[in-house]
């Protein structure tokens, strides 16, 4: 039995600890839309492991070498059976795509599964079809569990239980090795603005 009533007195402490976060303030809720939410923005350079992943067609994808250096890259961790946040994350990509495709150079969108044994290339094909994600500018990746975990850990985005994963979007400017990390859900317009921001020096 792992029943832990002794945690009760600690509840207020847990709460207060949540308020003193040291992250930089994120952008204000966007453009007068009453209902778009705030996210926080950070910049990091990550040491990414070199792994061999698989795309939705079952073709090998060398990561991170396969991410184009001369185009913006937008990356999210998702999985196809995820309930709440992944459909929103992926649909944000889908909605933002029309605007993103007009940017020069054109961004590459990457949805990387954190549930690789369930998300076989076949499952990713179905998922991508549901998002009408045809074409080459949006890739869906899976792979061996150890490799995927190594990538997540490198992005400081690993949770032992995938069900507790957070909504994150990573953006990299052409020619840069720094990643912009968006913590939380954004609106599609906010995401487009962030991507545009990458291209402005």
């Amino acid at each position, binding site marked *: 039995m792992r029943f832990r009533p002794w945690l009760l007195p600690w509840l207020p402490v847990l709460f207060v600890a949540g308020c003193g976060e040291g992250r930089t303030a994120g952008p204000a809720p966007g453009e007068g839309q009453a209902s778009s*939410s705030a996210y926080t923005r950070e910049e990091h350079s990550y040491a990414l492991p070199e792994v061999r992943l698989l795309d939705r067609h079952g073709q090998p994808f060398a990561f991170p070498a396969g991410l184009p250096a001369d185009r913006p890259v937008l990356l999210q961790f998702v999985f196809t059976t995820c309930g*709440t946040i992944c459909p929103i994350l992926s649909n944000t990509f889908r909605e933002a795509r029309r605007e993103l495709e007009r940017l020069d150079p054109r961004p590459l969108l990457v949805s990387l599964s954190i549930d690789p044994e369930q998300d076989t290339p076949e499952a990713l094909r179905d998922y991508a079809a549901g998002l009408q994600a045809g074409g080459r500018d949006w890739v869906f990746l899976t792979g061996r569990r150890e490799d995927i975990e190594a990538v997540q850990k490198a992005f400081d985005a690993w949770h032992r239980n995938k069900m507790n994963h957070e909504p994150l979007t990573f953006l990299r400017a052409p020619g840069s090795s720094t990643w912009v990390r968006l913590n939380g859900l954004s609106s599609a317009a906010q995401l487009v603005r962030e991507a545009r921001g990458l291209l402005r020096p």
Partner: protein
Amino acid sequence: MSPGRRGCAAVLLALAACSPGPPAGDPERGRLLYLSGRRPDGTPLEARAQGDVPVRGADAACVRCHQRSGMGSAEGGMLVLPITGPRLAAPQEWSNQDLMRYLYREEQERAFKAKLLQMRIRPAYDRPSLIRALREGLRPDGHPLDPAMPRYRLSEEDARDLAAWLERLGAAPSPGVDEERIHFATVILPDADPGEATALLETLEAWKERRNQHVLWELQKPGHSVRFKDTLYDALRLWELHVWRLEGPPSSWPEQLTALLEEQPVFALVSGLGGPRFGWGPVQAWCEAEGLPCLFPWTALPGEEDGAWYSFWFHEGVRLEARALAVFLRQRKDLEGAAQLVGETAEERAGAAALDAALGRPLPRAARVEELPAPPRVLVAWGAALPRPGPAGPERVYATTRALTARSAAELASLPAGLFFVTPCAPDPLLEPAIRQDRVWFRNQELPLDHERLRLAAYFAARSLDNALEHLFEDFYRDFLVESIEHGTEERMTFGPFHRLSLGRDQRHAARGCFLLRPDPDAEGGLAVEEAWTVPGLAE
């Protein structure tokens, strides 16, 4: 689609009989909107999340976020509120149980905790305010809901039907629980091996005894009374474990099960044992119709009902082994001169058929080696018996978990070279250090470790159930239990005889790959890894 809700069907019938008027809304149509995000004519629900992100159809279905039970979820720092009828009809106040549910078991982000702190008590919903919440995202007191809750474009009819379904959702707790006790059953199929059945039942019984002792001890601690409302202690129940032994042919099982359930309502089935002759299919179908969760029975032939929701399996049994074998045989160039040894049991035949399907062509098969058209170079053996490789026989023999679990570590270690086991079970060294903890528990209960894999699996099933129940507190809904198992499986510290198990929404097979193992007198447990963990669907 599998309703599995006789209770609801009865309510609906009664309603249809007395007050079918459209103003009340059609809960069955509401249920369809809730579960599929589609109307009966197939048109999708449409909504906007995060201000400007359109979601439709399955992505807009309430079930995606609020789950089938309506109890919501707390995933990825996102708190999805419960929306069962009783919850919506009352002012929202956070009980200790709610807070604990969201916090103590989860590794949650700080922002999430801060958000919980800011949650304001809201007044009760009525029909008009509920419909306004769905369309405009406003609570009864006018506060906006989080933008992750989509704002829906709903017709009058859609809104009424959804409201009618929500009012019924979670209206009554599931059977099998009272103020003091919670009842579970373990099903033993007629073809189960008696020795295995004893090992399994001994393990479950010991677990139950230990757990109940602990609960009694908690309840008797001074300062805590069972009647003190809204403490966590209210949620504690003593376990009752019933053994349901089925007899006769599978066609007679549903009737037996129904009679057993009527005599003693249970909240869920836990563990269970089947042999090679029949498979678990008929039990699964029955559970589905009853809406009764069935957690991790030990079987090599799980049911394969389409869209079934209530049964959880460790893995797909011989069907998984067959797909992995296809990968191994190809990789190792062992297809040429290969044949299958297939007995009369349902398990063996299902395995052989799945291998033929995975290979895209049938391998020669017979019940005995002598009956094969030509002496095989490579033999796949689906039963417990092991033909020996060697100069007089095949060069290599591939066997399955069935043959593996029929032998002790010493027997395995002394098998000849050329024999391999395809199995989702991990060899002992890969289970370290977790397996040591489990073995200590067995030692403390003074239980033997014969049929060790089976015992570990039963122990896992019981602990999984217990952990999932903790998450329910007093919201004793079977659907919520299913969701709790989906959510929590990956968090366990030990996984029985498996290296790792993981589930998710609508995922029902917790292990997705196989090892190829070979006898090794020097390895602990008598087996060493020949081919690493391989997930057939991920093989290039």
